């Protein structure tokens, strides 16, 4: 068996390498970029072909497109309020970019671009910059009262203000690490179990029979990873909405 006698190489799957031959090599077009393009095209395709029939009674694809549109719109207006419609395109794009990244990563031989901190931190930084800009535009200098809630005792100001500032600044960190760590941990876990199955199956006939159990566990884990893939995209979008709510309403 291939993996017999080798160490478990769990992190090799996250290695970037250029694709598309010499052209891709010259501009460092890696699998991550390739799958971002694929994710974008898939999202556009879903919405274009989903919206095209314009049937009163939607078919499967149209139902999916309408369901996702209405779901995200409801999330925006529920969390942010009526002003949430303005941020709907942003949240929708973000949700689908993350969701497609997570789901594409579940395909065999595919690359999960959301498993790179550079990608997730770029997304989170975009969110936090947008939130700050929106808050400053709506409230001006009054925005800084966000760091000191009304009615708190003045004596506690030296304690409350640093805590609030730190919690505000740690938002992009926790937002990006949550997504990135979820994806990395999930894929590492799958890889470790899969390698273990191969190793066990290579260890003789008893091992071959015993390997059925970790294989079954791995199948269950893949189902769980699909759940996590959707959940993390949802959490990313809803946390963006919550931050935008804070920016629009200040507490």
């Amino acid at each position, binding site marked *: 068996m291939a993996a017999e006698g080798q160490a478990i190489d769990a*992190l090799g799957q996250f290695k970037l390498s250029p694709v598309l031959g010499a052209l891709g090599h010259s501009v460092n077009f890696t699998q991550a970029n390739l799958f971002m393009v694929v994710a974008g095209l898939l999202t556009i395709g879903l919405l274009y072909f989903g919206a095209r029939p314009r049937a009163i009674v939607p078919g499967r694809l149209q139902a999916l497109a309408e369901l996702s549109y209405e779901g995200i719109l409801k999330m925006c207006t529920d969390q942010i309020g009526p002003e949430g419609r303005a941020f709907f395109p942003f949240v929708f794009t973000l949700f689908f970019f993350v969701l497609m990244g997570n789901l594409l990563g579940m395909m065999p031989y595919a690359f999960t671009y959301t498993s790179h901190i550079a990608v997730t931190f770029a997304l989170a930084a975009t969110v936090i910059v947008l939130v700050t800009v929106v808050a400053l535009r709506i409230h001006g200098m009054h925005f800084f009262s966000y760091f000191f809630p009304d009615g708190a005792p003045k004596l506690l100001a030296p304690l409350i203000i640093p805590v609030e500032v730190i919690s505000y600044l740690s938002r992009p960190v*926790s937002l990006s*690490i*949550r997504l990135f*760590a*979820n994806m*990395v*941990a999930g894929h*590492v876990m799958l890889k470790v179990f899969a390698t273990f199955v191969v190793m066990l199956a290579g260890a003789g006939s008893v091992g071959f029979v015993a390997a059925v159990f970790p294989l079954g566990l791995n199948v269950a884990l893949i189902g769980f990873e699909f759940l996590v893939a959707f*959940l*993390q995209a*949802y*959490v990313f979008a*809803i946390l963006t909405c919550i931050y935008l709510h804070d920016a629009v309403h200040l507490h």
Partner: protein
Amino acid sequence: MEVAAAKALGAGIAVIALAGVGIGIGNIFSALVTSVARNPSARDQVFGLGILGFALTEAVALFALLIAFLILFT
């Protein structure tokens, strides 16, 4: 060899945080089940909150796991 042993020990110690996360996730879902049992019509509203709480708590577990990976593989 001592460094490798210390790394393995450190990674093991780093994931002690999972004990707290287990308690937290158990708490969240017990509260979710209780609230749905008391008021089944509120299911849609509390389910989203429960999932959000689950994801936020799970993130803590993943931070610990990440530290363990950093200790082990770098």
